[in-house]
Structures are given as C-alpha cells and as structure tokens.
C-alpha cells in the first residue's frame, strides 16, 4: 500500500517537473527540472528492484547531463559577451 | 533486541520530521540566504537521524550507513556555502529585514575574487 502511495506521489512530482521543463522561459530552470525528473525516475527504478539501472540513471541522468548542459550554457554565454 | 528496533524506528520518525521542517522552512523563509540556512541545516540532521534509525534496526548495515553519514556531513555544508556565495555574486539581494550587510560593503570597495579570475 505504502509503495503505491509513494510511487503515485513521485509520478505527480515528475509530471509537474516535466511541464516546467517544457514550458519555462528560463533555460537553466528547465535543465534543473529535467535533473529532478531523472532523480525521481531512479527512485522508481529501485521500487522495480533494479538497483544497477538506478545507479546508472542517477549518475548519468541527474548529474552528468546537468553538468554538461551547464557547461554548454556557460560556453554560449561567453560567446554572447564577445559579440 | 526488540527495544533497539523500536528505538531505531522512533529515531527514524524524528529524522523524517526534521526533513519536513526543512521543507516548511524552505517554503516560509523570506529570502534566499535564510532558505539555505533552513534547508541545508534541517535536512542534514534529518537525513542523519533517518539513516541512524535504519542502522539501529539492522545492525549489520551500520558500517555502510556510517560511511554515508560521514559523506553527508562533509558535503552538505560545502554545498550550502557554495550556493550562498553563488547567490551573493549573482547579485541576489537579501530581504529588507536584513539590517547589516558587511559582505556587500566590503566587496564593493575591493575587487572580488570573481573579478580576479577573469
């Protein structure tokens, strides 16, 4: 019972974050929202008894992707300043 | 043995209450610096107590949980400090209740570390 409640709660937060990631004007906020989506996705993978997938999802989806996005955003900002 | 398990469960419950207080503090505080204080401080003790309760319930997991607690205690203050610094240098002002802001006075006079790096 508690499993179902927690999964529903996590899914609701994930859907809200997906809307933010699509519709928000600010690009940085959208990237952070997508990071939170994969954070919760990895918690749901643990519910489905797949810890290896959860480790991969947490490390790639919520850390490395976000870091690379911010690195690229930083590069774009420097280009803007030069012009 | 049974008492230890009940004690672990109660400690876990107290820890989760502290996590809830962190969320309430994050929601109620007026500006970003106070939010960082409420959020990181309460969530640090909350997660420590939650983990410790589980560790008391399963004594053979206790070593790994201790390692996890050490990671959290080392990394959480550093991330809160880095966020506060980022908020200051991104130009976010504290709320109007803040009556002394020595950091702003000092960094306006001298060039900050941000400028030196460029």
């Amino acid at each position, binding site marked *: 019972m508690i499993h179902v409640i927690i999964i529903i709660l996590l899914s609701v937060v994930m859907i809200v974050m997906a809307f933010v990631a699509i519709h928000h004007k600010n690009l940085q906020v959208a990237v952070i929202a997508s990071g939170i989506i994969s954070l919760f996705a990895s918690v749901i993978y643990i519910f489905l008894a797949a810890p290896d997938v959860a480790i991969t999802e947490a490390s790639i989806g919520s850390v490395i992707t976000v870091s690379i996005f911010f690195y690229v955003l930083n590069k774009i900002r420097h280009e803007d300043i030069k012009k | 043995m049974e008492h230890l398990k009940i004690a672990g469960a109660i400690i876990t419950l107290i820890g989760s209450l502290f996590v809830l207080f962190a969320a309430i503090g994050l929601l109620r505080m007026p500006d970003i610096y106070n939010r960082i204080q409420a959020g990181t401080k309460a969530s640090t003790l909350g997660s420590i107590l939650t983990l410790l309760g589980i560790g008391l319930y399963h004594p053979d997991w206790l070593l790994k949980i201790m390692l*996890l607690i050490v990671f959290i205690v080392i990394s959480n203050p550093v991330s809160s400090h880095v966020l506060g610094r980022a908020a200051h240098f991104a130009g976010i002002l504290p709320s109007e209740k803040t009556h002394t802001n020595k950091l702003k006075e000092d960094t306006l006079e001298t060039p900050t570390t941000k400028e030196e790096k460029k």
Partner: protein
Amino acid sequence: MANTLFTIAMLIVGLSFLLVTVRFLLGPSVVDRVVALDVLTISSIGLIVLLAHFLDRVIYVDVSIVYAILSFIGVIVIAKYLERSL
C-alpha cells in the same frame, strides 16, 4: 509496531517532497531552485534507505552512497556556473 513507524516516516518524507516542489515552482531565482534540488536529493537518500529496509536488501544502500557523492558534484557545477567562474 516498528514497521508502522517506518511507514509513517516514509509518508512524511513524501509530504516534504510535495512542499519542496511548491518552492521549486514559486522560487523567484535560479538559486532557490538549486536549493530545492539539494534538499530533494538529501531527502531522497533517506527515502532510498527506508526502501532498503522495506525490501530488505543491502544493495540499495550502495545506490544512496552514489547519490550522496554525485549530487554534491552537480550542485557545485551549477553554483560555479551562476558565479560565472566555471
């Protein structure tokens, strides 16, 4: 008895997720949202260890160790970006 208390603890952690999500939606600046991400990560470490208790396997604690190390790196990268010194 103990399992009931653990269930209540899990529900409270889930409720705090909802409250932090509200702060994420309201938050005026980007730094507020990063603080929300930080608190979400730390509290989901607690949730994963509670899950490890319910499913009774120690391997899930390793997942939360990975979380604790990696989330720290993510927050530092974002803060460096906001500070314009990445």
